[in-house]
């Protein structure tokens, strides 16, 4: 009983030590993290306003018509949450695992590999949350300036929603990275990420596709993320949002379980 009571807080606090380690590292290269905030904004201005002027208005799923920027902004937020999570859990995680041999040193301490996995995912989410907050803040400022991209008070929930997207992809991305043997293998991961970025109802409504293809796209994780955040920012909630959250959370949890298992095999031979 005593052991149980003692281990519960440790299971929560130990992962944060991985976050502390990463904070120590990035203290020196703060600009690298900070600059990541601009990338989704560049996309927002290019796509939302540049291309938006060419597209005009598009229809949401409920049939209402909105300016293209309103349509594309939530999708860019979801994509940015996905890309941030994938970047941190693929290249960066793989480097620490295979090249820096960081975790070989960590496992000699009371930290377990589950602590490592949870800690790194927590870090990916914290880093991602900076960009999400920045993106939402800019949208809010644009709203004050008359370019309202969020048309519902539900939009405030876009922040936790983006975190859920980040969690799903961080778990999946990290799980995939544990199977990677060399850098070139990440090309295969990109072969899954890029089509999702381009075809998940990100840049245009999926009603452009034949019905069978629509169903297929609806089954991809980024589409669920885009659907979730778009429903919140445009104020068009539906029951499918429950499926979105469950889908992404379960994907993250499965990923996390695979990571713990794989790390045990890789490091505790």
């Amino acid at each position: 009983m005593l052991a149980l009571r003692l281990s519960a807080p440790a299971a929560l606090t130990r992962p944060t030590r991985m976050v502390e380690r990463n904070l120590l590292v990035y203290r020196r290269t703060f600009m690298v993290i900070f600059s990541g905030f601009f990338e989704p904004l560049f996309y927002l201005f290019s796509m939302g306003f540049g291309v938006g002027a060419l597209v005009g208005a598009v229809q949401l799923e409920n049939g209402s018509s909105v300016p293209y920027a309103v349509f594309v902004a939530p999708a860019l937020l979801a994509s940015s949450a996905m890309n941030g999570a994938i970047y941190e859990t693929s290249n960066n995680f793989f480097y620490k695992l295979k090249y820096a041999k960081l975790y070989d040193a960590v496992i000699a301490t009371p930290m377990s590999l589950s602590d490592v996995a949870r800690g790194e995912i927590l870090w990916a989410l914290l880093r991602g949350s900076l960009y999400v907050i920045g993106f939402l803040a800019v949208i809010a400022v644009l709203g004050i300036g008359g370019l309202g991209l969020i048309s519902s008070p539900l939009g405030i929930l876009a922040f936790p929603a983006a975190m859920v997207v980040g969690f799903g992809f961080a778990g999946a991305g990290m799980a995939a990275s544990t199977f990677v043997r060399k850098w070139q293998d990440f090309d295969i991961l990109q072969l899954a990420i890029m089509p999702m970025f381009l075809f998940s109802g990100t840049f245009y409504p999926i009603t452009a596709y034949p019905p069978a293809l629509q169903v297929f796209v609806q089954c991809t994780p980024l589409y669920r993320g885009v659907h979730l955040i778009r429903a919140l920012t445009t104020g068009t909630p539906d029951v499918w949002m429950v499926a979105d959250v469950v889908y992404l959370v379960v994907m993250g949890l499965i990923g996390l379980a695979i990571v713990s298992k794989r790390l045990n095999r890789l490091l505790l031979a």
Partner: protein
Amino acid sequence: MPDSLSSQDYVIHARGLTKRFGAFAAVDGVDFDVAAGEAFGFLGPNGAGKTSTMRMIGTVSPVTAGTLTVFGLDPAHHGAQIRSRLGVVPQADTLDNELSVLENLLIYGRYFGLPWREARRRAGELLDFVQLTERSGDQVEPLSGGMKRRLVIARALINEPSLLLLDEPTTGLDPQARHLLWDRLYRLKQRGVTLCLTTHYMDEAEQLCDRLVVMDKAKIVAEGSPRQLIERYVTREVLELRFNREAGAGEATGEGVNLDSQLEGLADRIEHLPDRLLVYTADGDATAAAAFERGLRPASILVRRSSLEDVFLRLTGRSLVE
């Protein structure tokens, strides 16, 4: 080892300890005990199973068969508890190259759950102990091999472990760096830290170990203090003879047999190495004189004390460092 001690009294206790990777047995049923405060060594060539044994003790490699307890605990169930009292100096440095010297110690202290303030205090003391205080703000990458090793030792001490595991602590270091490292390890031993180390250097084993086991091909082939092992398996002195092959007459064929017969009765045992002859005897100088009288004219003669290298050669027929 007194029989009255139970497995609880040993810091490490192993019986029939086995590690298999598929069909390959890296460690094949070894028995040993390490008592508190002693310096215990695994001596053997590369591939003898030393590192696998150390990784099992460090709870980062599951035991395939046999019994192993560390601090009386089972690594399979109490890994984190064991590791919290353990200091590990792995064969490869595994330092965090993205952090500074000091930060390496601080974050490692955090991994052990030390409060920042306590980690900072201990890190300061440890940098002093391993003589790296003036490099504390530097990046790890440009440090010399000896400095990195010392930093790894400081890192292993951040949790004030009662048992320190060192896997090949001085491999690849120059003589000066090795002596500095030995000195620090000797001080730790004096403070009562139990040392458990692997090495393939006989001089290191002689310098540091109270007691050691000789490992070869996954098994323990002998056990005792360095002195005991030498007394048990070899003579007090060795006479090393080198012959100038080109100048010698009748040495091209049957040379060994020829020399053996000429040295008949002068030595306990003779070992033929590719470049020299090792003649085991109680008194090297006397044997050298006697050999000279019998007409042997070696190109060079060297008399030295027997070492663990000779023990290993006797036990396995091979050299430690190949």
